[in-house]
């Protein structure tokens, strides 16, 4: 049975870490490329499809991108790897869609045009497991981070 003395001995063998140097975080290049591509959405003015669809504001796209960056960074902090990047696309009524379609799961997050509106999400594993709900897109949703990293 370990004794307190033995424990003290173990402590003595442990070097004191003066300063923790985390490995340099690599850039999420996949997300960066998708965000650059998504800027094209801002070229879509009202009735861009000839069917009366709404245009898209920089504010809405920025909120969607902020959401992605925060959740990507959180995923990296927890798992030392970035989650896959979604397709950023035009959603209904000036909203922005963030769509992940993977082999074993799918997730759609919709960021509304209304600055005060809640983002809505739905995802499943093409089977019984699913995740759905709404949240303030300015906050970190750990459920979504976990889903992205699973």
């Amino acid at each position, binding site marked *: 049975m370990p004794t307190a003395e033995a424990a003290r001995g173990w402590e003595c063998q442990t070097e004191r870490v003066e300063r923790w140097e985390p490995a340099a975080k690599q850039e999420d290049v996949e997300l960066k490329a998708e965000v650059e591509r998504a800027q*094209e*959405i801002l*070229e*879509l003015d009202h009735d*861009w*499809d*000839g*069917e*009366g*669809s709404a245009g898209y504001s920089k504010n809405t796209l920025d909120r969607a991108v902020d959401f992605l960056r925060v959740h990507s960074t959180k995923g990296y902090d927890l798992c030392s790897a970035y989650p896959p990047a979604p*397709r950023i*696309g*035009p*959603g*209904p*009524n000036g909203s922005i*869609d963030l*769509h992940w*379609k993977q082999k074993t799961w*799918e997730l*759609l*997050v*919709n960021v509304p045009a209304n600055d005060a509106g*809640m983002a*809505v*999400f*739905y995802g*499943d594993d093409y089977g019984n497991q699913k995740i*759905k*709900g*709404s949240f303030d897109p300015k906050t970190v949703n750990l459920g979504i981070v976990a889903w992205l990293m699973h």
Partner: protein
Amino acid sequence: MADALVFPVEEIPDADSVFMRAHETYCRDGEVMPGVFTAKNGGMSVDWDKYSTKEETRQRAKNPAKNGVLRLAVGAIRGIDDLDVQHRPLPTNRAHSEVDLPTNEELTEVRIFLLRIAEVVISLPAGRPPGHA
């Protein structure tokens, strides 16, 4: 002056399909994006295949060259939550029908399921960037 042509409203059987236009902006790498499923003026406009071909649906677009066409089985649509397909003919389009989409947060889930049952029957243009002719 002649009266406007009025078509009777019919019940659409589950075994039939509807066609729907998809603008090239909703295409990425040959795949359709979920934003294509959106309601305009109440419902999501589709054409009943009893009275329209896929090409006729495409030609009803303001710019047909920028649109592909999807086919959705009516029975499969009705199998998604509480969705229904109603025949709502227009004087200029007997095939016109609408899928009544939810207006609350259920819409996000419904769009995923619609995406899974949609079949591309006229390929979308290659997804050129917005604003390009």
